[in-house]
Structure formats: C-alpha cells, structure tokens
C-alpha cells in the first residue's frame, strides 16, 4: 500500500469525502453562521443579534455574556448587573451541556485563523516550534485574573485577541488585521497550535467548564481501531485521545473526559473504522477509579492531563 498522502485518506476512501468532512463542514457553517448573525445587523440592518461575543442581545430578549470576561470584571472589582449575570449563566449552562471548548471549535472566530495556520504548517511540514506545556494557558488565565484584581481594570481586554478580532469584525476592523496577522504568524512559524492549544486564557476557562460538561466524544468502537493514527494527527489536543482510545487495558475510557478536548469531532470524521462518536460523559463503562493502585495512577494521570 502506498504511503499516506493526507490525513483522513482512509476515511475518505471508506466513507466518502462528505462523510469524512461532515463535522468540519458543520463546524465551519456554525462558525460563519454565528458571525453572520452578528454581521446581519450592521451590514444588512437585520437585527437578530446585537452586540458581540463579550455580551449580546438576541431578538431583544435573550441576553448572553461571556462568563470569563465577566469574571475578569468581578476580579477588577465590579459586580455586574443582573442582565449580564443571567447572560453568563445561560452561556455556562449551555457549554456544560454541549462541551466547554465547543466555544473554541464552533464559535470563536480565532479558530479559523489558527486552523488555517496549522493546516499550512502541516502542508509545508514546518517545524512545530515552541511547544510550552498545555497547562500554560491555566497559568495565563490565573495571571489575567490576578492582573485584573491588582490593576482594578480589565487589563487583558486591552490585548485579548479573541474579543478584539470579533469586535473588529462586527464594528470597525481598522488595525485589527495586525492582530489577525500576528496570531496567524505566531501559530504558523513560532508555535504550532500555540495560541489555542497552549496560551489562550479563554480556551483555558472553557476547558475548565469542559471538565464537567455532559456531551463528550467517545471512542466507543475502540476495539476496531487499526492504529492508523489519523485521529492523533488531526486532533488539536491529541493528548486527550490516548486514555480514551488506548485505555482498554487499564480500564480507562472510552469517553474523552479531558476538558482540553474541544469536541471539534474531526476524529469522528477522519476515522475509517468509525471508532468515535458523540456520547454522554456517563457512558464511560470502564471507569478508572476501581481496582488496584495501578488504575488509580492512570486515573491521576488522566485528570492531570
């Protein structure tokens, strides 16, 4: 058999191109659709959604607010009014249901930029570059909150590329292209998947929600895995797959429980053996915490991941 020409080739041959790109397409449609809802007002005067991702009002009734931004505000010393608090509660509840970092993979406009950088980096076999610990983003998140507390203002929001880019798209793009370009180049040549995978404090926050969220991806048919490694190659957070896919021997999985998983579902797309599917976190029929000390160690490792 000839060498693999691209990731997911087996899945395309097995299931057809459309099935092998189903979730990618859905994800892009959702990303652009959400952006379209925000842009319909300013561009076409159709005001379904007003505001931006930090806080918005849909159809003049539904308030939505970003919980991480509101947390910064709280650390800076402001207790938000009820509308924003309700909006943040709705957002938290939603992501607890569908998966914390679904924000990253289905909503955040930066994802398209960094996904493109990653695709190009792989295409031209650029070196991975700087790969700081995956936990770095948690430290950045803590640092952002402490900075807000010490300075008494939402200091991070002067720089936060996520909110700056989305606001730029909805209001005035101006020099925001410099932020887009900086992020793109950072991910392309300095650190592959560097922003979304290692540094972004918003992603870290939604990752914390993801630790508790209901909808997860599960390697339910992991017995069928033929070790083609396509899922690892396509996954933006490949360390989350191991305990679920390879955990049969150590009674871990098959549900991917790590909050780092963005539920982007590309693993479902590229698997020719249809190992992965969306599932609930409770359908983890091989819980790790039972049995001897060896299993507990695995469990500890998994939670640390």
């Amino acid at each position, binding site marked *: 058999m000839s060498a693999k020409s691209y990731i997911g080739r087996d899945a395309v041959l097995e299931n057809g191109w459309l099935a092998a790109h189903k979730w990618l397409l859905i994800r892009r449609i959702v990303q652009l659709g959400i952006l379209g809802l925000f842009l319909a007002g300013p561009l076409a005067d159709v*005001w379904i959604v*007003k*505001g*931006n991702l*930090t*806080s*918005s*009002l849909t159809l003049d009734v539904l*308030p939505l*607010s*970003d919980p991480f931004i*509101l947390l910064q*505000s709280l650390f*800076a*010393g*402001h*207790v*938000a*009014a009820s509308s*924003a608090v309700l*909006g943040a509660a709705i957002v938290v509840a939603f992501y607890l249901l569908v998966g914390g970092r679904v924000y990253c993979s289905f909503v955040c406009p930066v994802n398209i930029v960094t996904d493109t950088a990653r695709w190009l980096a792989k295409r031209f076999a650029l070196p991975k570059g700087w790969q*700081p*610990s995956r*936990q*770095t983003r*948690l*430290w*950045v998140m*803590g*640092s952002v909150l402490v*900075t807000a507390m*010490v*300075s*008494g*203002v*939402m*200091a*991070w*929001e*002067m*720089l936060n590329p996520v*909110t*700056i880019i989305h*606001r*730029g798209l*909805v*209001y*005035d*793009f*101006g*020099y*925001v292209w*410099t*932020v887009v370009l900086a992020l793109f180049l950072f991910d392309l040549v300095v650190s592959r998947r560097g922003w979304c995978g290692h540094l972004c404090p918003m992603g870290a926050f939604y990752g914390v929600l993801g630790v508790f969220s209901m909808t997860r991806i599960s390697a339910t048919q992991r017995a069928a895995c033929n070790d083609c490694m396509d899922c690892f190659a396509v996954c933006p957070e490949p360390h989350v797959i191991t*305990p679920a896919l*390879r955990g049969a021997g150590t009674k871990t999985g098959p549900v991917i429980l790590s909050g780092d998983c963005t539920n982007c579902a590309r693993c479902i797309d590229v698997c020719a053996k249809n190992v992965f599917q969306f599932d609930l976190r409770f359908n983890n029929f091989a819980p790790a915490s039972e049995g001897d000390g*060896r299993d507990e*160690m*695995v469990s500890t*490792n998994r939670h640390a991941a």
Partner: protein
Amino acid sequence: MGISTSSQSSAVSRRRFLANVARAAGGASALGLVVGLFARQAQSLPAQALRPPGAGTEDQFLAACVRCGLCVRDCPYPTLGLASFGDDVPVGTPYFVARSAPCEMCDDIPCVKACPTGALDSNLTHIDDADMGLAVLIDEETCLNLQGLRCDVCQRVCPLINEAITLERKHNTRTGKHAIFIPTVHSDKCTGCGKCERACVLETAAIRVLPRYLAKGRIGSHYRFGWIEKEKHGGKSLTPGLIDLPDRLPAVLPDVLKGWKP
C-alpha cells in the same frame, strides 16, 4: 501512558513536572506584569473622548465595561462609537467626541438601558443628572461674545439654557457704551453633553467639554470665605470683640491729628 515503573524515573518525571510548572508559572506572571503595565498606559483617555452618560469614573468604567457595544447600537444618533484597535482610546470602549457628534440627551437614555453590566449606571434615569464632562469657555481671546458681539450660540443650543450656560453682562470698555455677554457655565447644571462645543461657530471651538477632573479647580478644604461664614452666622460678626479700624486716613483729619505724619 506515563505510568512510572521505578522510583527513579518517577523522581525524574516529578522534577520535569516541577520545572514545567515553574516555567509556565513564571511565563504567565511575566505576561501578567507586561499586560498590567501595558493596560496602565493604554487606559489613558484623551481629554476630548467623552464617556456615555452614567459611566462613573474612568477606573470604575474600565472595570465594568465588557466592550460589547450594545450602547452604541441603541444610540439613535451617530454619537457613540467603539474605540477600534489602534485608536488612542482603550480598545473596544464606547466614547464620543463632542465637536463631531455631541450627546443629544435623549429623555429615555437608551444607551444606559442597553448596558448589560451596569457600567453605565441604570440609576441614572434623568438625563439632566448626567455627568459626562464639563463645558469650559477655554479661549476668551477668540470667543465672539467676549469681543462684544452677540453670537450666543453655545448658550442657545444648551439643553439646559439659562441654567447650565448663562450670559453674564459686563461693561464693554472698548465701545464704552455696550455690554459684553459672557457665556458662563455652571458646573452644578452642565451635563457635558457637548452641544455647545459642537455648535461653536469658530473654526476651532472656544468652548469645549473636558473631563471634570481637568475642568474643575478645588478650594483647599480649610478655606473659609468670610462673607459666607458671616451669612451662616445670621449676618452677625464672627469676631464681635474686634474693633474695625478705618483702612486709610480720613480725608479730613480731626483736630487732634493735625500735623501728624504716618
């Protein structure tokens, strides 16, 4: 799987783990410092950028405003805008420039109603109580009224005409027979809407809205004005035992002082 099989490799991995944690923590702290310092610099607001009604102090506002722009969307005039990245106003925050588009002082204050976080204080229900800044007649050398002309435009466009801006009369010494009508702003009434600055007929406005901290002086807390204290005292002298001697020699000296030289 990272499962340790010997205590030695466990010690190594623990050391590596601690080094990684230290590196991430150190990097994040450095980032925090840089962000904090950058924010200090970036949050300075140019004097001509005014906040929407109900914004409170700048520090309060920057702690509370999530920069969603809902106030901008509900502003029925082209007044409010969000600072874009690269502007000299903190990125994403709402502001207006009075000379370009002043606050039109809507009775229902839609911008305040739109604010989801309370960064624009919903306790502000009467627009005349707003405090966006303070108009100052900043250049008496160009103000037409101060030259003795009757421009009066700033006073006439003021939503609180004859309260926030009054015309105070002074003798015109140039002509010797006319009056100068001085546009005079009263800080307890002025909302800082900026309609006066917008309407000023000069090429560059002689009256401008400034943030209150730039516009107002402050008397030392120990200062007392004698005439006010006397009024509080029911018009009676505050120092009844004190003899008030004449400040100058009387024009006609009494006989006893004839021949006296100071």
